[in-house]
């Protein structure tokens, strides 16, 4: 049997033990419940959960995080359907058709369809991770230090250029993250950098403090805008309505949306899959007029794509060590905390971990059918009553506990709050946060590979642009950095062409 199939089989046996199952089930429930509350995103849920995984066995920790990841991607559909409030940004398109369906008395069926669609998208994505990651890992074994350096640069450039409106601000944020990563001991010479005599900084600024602080506190503080003292009670009863949708109506939508989600997930920085999938479903539909008014296909497209890029985003993360999304960056941090270095060697050094994680993404997606549908009918009417004014201090308390638990140090808590304030200021001045996190996580690896490359070449910088892979990666970097300008120029040309047409109104 091929080694991949051997590893998949062995990993499946490893994840089917009670601890791992408990982690997956608990994580899925937690993810669905947390993200059903408006104001808590999937990113925040995972950022809060990571400190809890410190003392756990690797597969239990990864199972918990996989469950939260998939659960949180789906849970946002519940307030979207019941209240027309997307619980997560990914469920904006869900609200367009889910809420009208609920108003038609089909809330239960809509939530069930959302859960099943998310499950299907997530399972297809997990299969793509199992199939695509190993060959990509094999290819990336050919990467030496110069190539790895440029892969990281490509990852940073794509995040900076494509995630957000302003590339300059994205690059500045990435640079800030890279500089944060230089604090502490120089990993080549062993000398201290930027510690200013503070003992606690000798080991560097913990990535966890930056991640938890920047991804948790700013959105938590923004909850203050919702402070009314009351929750979001829903008048809509959740009842099962049989016969509202059939698999035959939506299976093609599921497949197409999942493929869109997988491609989007693999490309670092790309984050518009929900709208792409929704528009494609509308274009291909025989009843496009129903979209926005309770279309079964619209809801299925929105929810299947939401989960379809989850596992796929881990493909570049696990094989190249370059995260393609906020959550992938957090998962990279979680793997580092567990002592695993993402990259091609992970597939040979710890195959049970990487293939086990793939199975956990598959299993937790399947669990959504149970928890996303059944739990919704039992709990969510009450969960949505939690007022934001009570939610906010609870989130901050969890953040403090989690930040402290990592190293038993209040200094980490202070650091998390410092970066929370920095993140809040960045958001106020419209700077993206994701490039900072990715810069922090990848900065030391980028520097290490750059310096090793220069050491290998005796200081000759031509090693960085002499190989064919390096040239391709450099070209990709230039293309990515030029993309916003090209996009702007093309839009301007289209506008001018439209304005000069005699038929333009």
């Amino acid at each position, binding site marked *: 049997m091929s080694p991949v199939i051997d590893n998949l089989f062995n990993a499946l046996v490893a994840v089917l033990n009670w601890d791992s199952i408990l982690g997956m089930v608990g994580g899925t429930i937690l993810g669905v419940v947390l993200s059903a509350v408006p104001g808590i995103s999937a990113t925040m849920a995972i950022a809060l959960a990571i400190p809890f995984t410190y003392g756990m066995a690797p597969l239990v920790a990864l199972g918990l995080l996989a469950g939260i990841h998939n659960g949180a991607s789906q849970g946002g559909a519940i307030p979207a359907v019941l209240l027309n409030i997307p619980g997560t940004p990914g469920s904006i398109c869900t609200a367009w058709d889910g809420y009208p369906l609920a108003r038609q008395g089909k809330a239960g069926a809509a939530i069930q369809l959302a859960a099943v669609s998310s499950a299907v998208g997530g399972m297809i994505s997990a299969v793509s991770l199992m199939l695509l990651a190993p060959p990509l890992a094999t290819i990336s074994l050919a990467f030496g230090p110069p190539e790895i350096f440029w892969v990281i640069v490509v990852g940073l450039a794509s995040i900076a250029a494509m995630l957000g409106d302003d590339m300059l601000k994205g690059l500045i944020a990435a*640079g800030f993250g890279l500089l944060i990563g230089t604090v502490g001991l120089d990993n080549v010479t062993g000398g201290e950098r930027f510690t200013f005599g503070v003992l606690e900084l000798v080991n560097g600024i913990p990535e966890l403090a930056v991640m938890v602080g920047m991804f948790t506190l700013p959105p938590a503080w923004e909850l203050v805008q919702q402070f009314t003292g009351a929750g979001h009670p829903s008048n809509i009863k959740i009842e099962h309505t049989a016969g509202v949708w059939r698999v035959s109506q939506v299976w093609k939508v599921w497949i197409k949306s999942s493929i869109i989600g997988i491609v989007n997930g693999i490309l670092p920085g790309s984050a518009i899959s929900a709208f792409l999938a929704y528009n494609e479903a509308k274009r291909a539909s025989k009843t496009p007029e129903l979209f926005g008014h309770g279309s079964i296909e619209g809801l299925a497209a929105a929810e299947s794509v939401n989960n379809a890029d989850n596992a796929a985003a881990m493909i570049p993360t696990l094989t190249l060590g370059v995260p393609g*999304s906020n959550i992938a960056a957090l998962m990279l941090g979680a793997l580092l905390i567990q002592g695993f270095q993402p990259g091609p060697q992970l597939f040979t050094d710890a195959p049970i971990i990487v293939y086990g994680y793939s199975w956990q993404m598959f299993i937790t997606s399947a669990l959504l059918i149970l928890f996303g549908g059944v739990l919704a009918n039992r709990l969510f009417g009450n969960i949505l009553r939690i007022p934001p004014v*009570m939610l906010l201090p609870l989130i*901050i308390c969890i953040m403090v506990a989690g930040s402290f638990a990592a190293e038993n140090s209040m200094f980490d808590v202070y650091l998390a709050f410092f970066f929370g304030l920095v993140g809040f200021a960045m958001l106020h001045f419209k700077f993206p946060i994701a490039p900072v996190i990715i810069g922090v996580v990848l900065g030391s690896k980028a520097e290490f590979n750059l310096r090793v490359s220069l050491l290998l070449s005796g200081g000759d910088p031509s090693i960085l642009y002499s190989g064919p892979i390096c040239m391709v990666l450099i070209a990709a970097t230039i293309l990515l950095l030029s993309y916003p300008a090209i996009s702007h120029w093309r839009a301007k040309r289209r506008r001018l062409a439209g304005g000069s047409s005699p038929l333009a109104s």
Partner: protein
Amino acid sequence: MDAPETSSGAASEAPARPSQDIISSLVVLAFSITVFFIAGDLPVQSQIFPRAVAVLMVICGGLMLIRALLAQRAASAAIAAGAAAVMRTPMVAPLKTGLIILYSLLYVAAVGQLGFVISSIIFIFVTAHTFGFRKPVALVLTPIGFVGCVYFLFERVLHTPLPTSPFFGWM
């Protein structure tokens, strides 16, 4: 799906005003130039990377400043010609936001002195009451119940200690 979130730099928000960009670009320039000069005290091998990043940030900050100044000049000309209104995007609920940040900072300072349990119960109670939550039973039971659950989870299940107070060795 991990879409760009409002709190992580979403593309859906209104862009920054030119004056905001001028301020932020000046901060970026000041920060990067400072890093560049501080890194000069490091050994040559150690200073290459931070200095290279600082230079890139100076370039980006400078471009951002030029862009903001041009945008401000264009906006001023448009306003003077009556073609545009003054653009204001004030922070939503600035007083509430400032107060919750202050409460959070006081809470963190208190955790270091009073321990997690006492500080958290007080923080949850005071925050909820200040911002309008008035159900007395829930106001008392929620902080105690929630903090109790967190304490149990960390100390008993995960065997991970929480910050303790000088008054009680266990909380």
